[in-house]
């Protein structure tokens, strides 16, 4: 089994994995980072979104081996100790989550949006979320959270 190494949440990690192992499996099963979720098998739900080399990516769409040497951030890497990241805080403040299953992907995706577009309109947020499904919230409060999170990050 090949050894795959990368940086995840600032730490260098490495594991021997079958070649067919997806990045999301590597994170969940080999590193125990179960905050990244799997909600589908067709790369459409976005529950698995992480950041790789600074950009959001569905971790079910690439092999772990393709992430060799990459810099990966997962939902576990956002908070600073007990202090939530402003985007996480915005979700909490605005009830942007219910069952929480889509949430890690939503937050990671939202962060990529605001780094590309720090002051998005409601329409832009809704369009950006095309690749993230939520069955609980009707998106109303997710959109509100992301707008609030963007505002907080603009300072």
């Amino acid at each position: 089994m090949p050894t795959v190494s990368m940086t995840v949440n600032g730490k260098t990690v490495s594991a021997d994995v079958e070649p067919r192992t997806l990045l999301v499996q590597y994170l969940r099963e080999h590193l125990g980072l179960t905050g990244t979720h799997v909600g589908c098998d067709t790369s459409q739900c976005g529950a698995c979104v992480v950041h790789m080399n600074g950009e959001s990516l569905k971790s079910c769409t690439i092999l772990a081996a393709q992430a060799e040497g990459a810099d990966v951030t997962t939902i576990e890497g956002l908070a600073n100790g007990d202090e939530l990241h402003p985007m996480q805080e915005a979700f909490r403040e605005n009830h942007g989550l219910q069952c929480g299953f889509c949430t890690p992907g939503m937050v990671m995706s939202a962060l990529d949006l605001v780094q590309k577009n720090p002051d998005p309109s409601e329409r832009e947020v809704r369009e950006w979320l095309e690749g993230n499904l939520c069955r609980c919230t009707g998106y109303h409060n997710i959109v509100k959270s992301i707008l609030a999170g963007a505002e907080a990050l603009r300072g």
Partner: protein
Amino acid sequence: MSDTGIGASVKRVEDLRFLTGNGNYTDDINRPGQSHAWLLRSPHAHAKINAIDTSKAEAAEGVLAVLTGADMAADGVGGLPCGWQIHSKDGEPMAEPAHPPLAVDKVRHVGDQVAIVIAETRDAARDAAELIEVDYTVLDAVTDMDTALAGKTLVHDDVPNNRCFDWEIGDKDAVDEAFAKADKVVSIDLSNNRLIPNAMEPRAAISDFDRTTGRYTLYTTTQNPHVIRLLMGAFVLQIPEHKLRVVAPDVGGGFGSKIFHYAEEAILTWAAAKVNRPIKWTAERTESFMTDAHGRDHETHAELALDGDGKFLGLRVATKANLGAYLSTFGSSVPTYLYATLLAGVYTTPAIYAEVQTVFTNTVPVDAYRGAGRPECTYLLERLVTKAARETGLDPAEIRKRNMIQPDQYPYQTPVALQYDCGDVPASFESALKAADYDGFEKRRADAEKNGKLRGIGISTYVEACGIAPSAVAGALGARAGLYESAQVRVHPTGSVTVYTGTHSHGQGHETTFAQLVSESFGIPADQVEVSHGDTDQVQFGMGTYGSRSLAVGGPAILKACNKVIDKAKKIAAHIMEADVSDIEFADGKFTVAGTDKEMAFGEVSLAAYVPHNYPIEEIEPGLDENAFYDPLNFSFPGGAHICEVEVDPDTGDVEVVNFTAVDDVGRVVNPMIVEGQVHGGLAQGVGQAVLEGCVYDDDGQLLTGSYMDYTMPRADDLPSFSVATQSVMGASNPLEVKGVGEVGAIGSPPAVINAILDALAPLGVEDISMPATSHKVWQAIQASSVRQAAE
């Protein structure tokens, strides 16, 4: 009062773990020595199994066992039971064909379980499953209800015409009389589209067996762990309760689809003892599509009799409901008692008669999905009433007002069994009309027309029965279980509290809301209260969460236990403060002696209960830990009005929901923030049903909408921001005065959307459109419309 009590938008305690990736969903759990399962599923909708050769799979690397239905039968494993017995018109009990967890003689839908492979890794199990050779004789499949009822192809050889039962409710003669004297009869034919629930977390389970104690443990994605323990233990595997622990950890959404006892739970639990290893199974989304119970799927013909003033005189309904290939746990109750008992809606229709035939087909079993029966009922009524408005020339708001139950008519006895306890629909209706600026609509229509868009407005009102249910009533109607709820309130020595509830939270935020109830009752901050749910080893008993019952049935159980704690604590306080117990008052977290300045804090009394040095030991026991069971007196009846505005692009058929206003009566609101969130989620599912979602089978029983590429889930850019408000009459059937909110959004919204689309298309002469009203369908309707035809 504590500022974290009833009525406060307390931020959710659940969020911290979910937001930081520390949730504990079933697939996140791993057991030492765990093996992995893959289920081989039928590729055919209907086929005879002649033989299964597992030898190659068994020999594959890493495989521990390959087991089939024959192995289960040899071990005497029972079939999956149905929890609700219905009787047909003629008094015969419903047909209950066998439902083996692993198929034995036949497979009956695509996705039916054929064999389980257990291996060291999931990939090894999956690879080995490909090596299983199943000799099938493919049979004709039947997917539509009319063909099924013709009975040429039988899903179950022992169920003639594939009819499970033919049930009725109401007074047929009274309805015939009403129609005989009617000035006008309006009729409608419609279907309620089959939906696939799609909780974002796929189902998963981990089973474990401890040889030394003979105890089984099952972690599973369920909404009701005790019900699973009861059904699986007693009916399927014959495991007594004390040897079976069922844990539902964090569950990523349910919407009904995780109520039912699924085959995989029983197969995994049984197999764990066979391989003597924990076994984990997690569904792929494709499996969710073809094995999670689907929702809705009704065909209905209905007729409404009216007098010359537009007053409803009678309603006659004939419905066919698709049950799928097997009776799912509550499949029989959804199209009957959860559907036709609501046919009065919010109206005073004096005579109602409904008959419901249920049909087996070679499709996934159909069961409760958010609203369960009540959305089907509301859709039928509100389409019919809107059609009646058009045919009588009355405004859709006016015809509703003329027929609404007035506030002074409660308790209101309907002609279809239910007695509504309280409500004021005219008030929520007026609020909704105002909030939606109903009177100003024609101007918006005209403005849209200038932009080349067809704008329409649609109204829907509804009432639903929640808080399922008074056990005696449910039992008389065929429920095979009691439907009370239980709670335990454990006050710890220093005054903090753990609450154990038999309900289960899979997104609803019970850990927050229930802590608010205790905060209110004891006058302590909510962060002094921990809510525990989901583990049958911790919680004494429970019926779980569905039918918007958690707060309406589980809440009063908590309140009862809190009151028992207070009663006992008063005795302790009376003893210590040397007063008569009748002089002890409890408020704001303090016990006081009336007319004196003596007081004891809640924590001082709890400490005395556990350190009983100065204690009325002859009268009461030490400790402060109380149980309660609560069985409701009646259902609760949330209701309200939903108004939708759409814009249709006549060139493309594209429908945009531009405004959605909901005013709901949910009784007392404990956490307004959570209540609004529940309504939003329900609305999204309702709008999804109306314009996007629909399950499609081909004639061979292949599921054509088996992935997110084929089944249209509502996305953020399909929906507007919603305008949501509550306008409540306090509930009359439980001491918390709550009614339930989980389903209201999904119940009221689909007809509002379709009525809006039909209003938009009315100038073109389009009179009907079925759900989901996709752009394609709307475009076709426009092309075929009478006005367009006439112009050409």
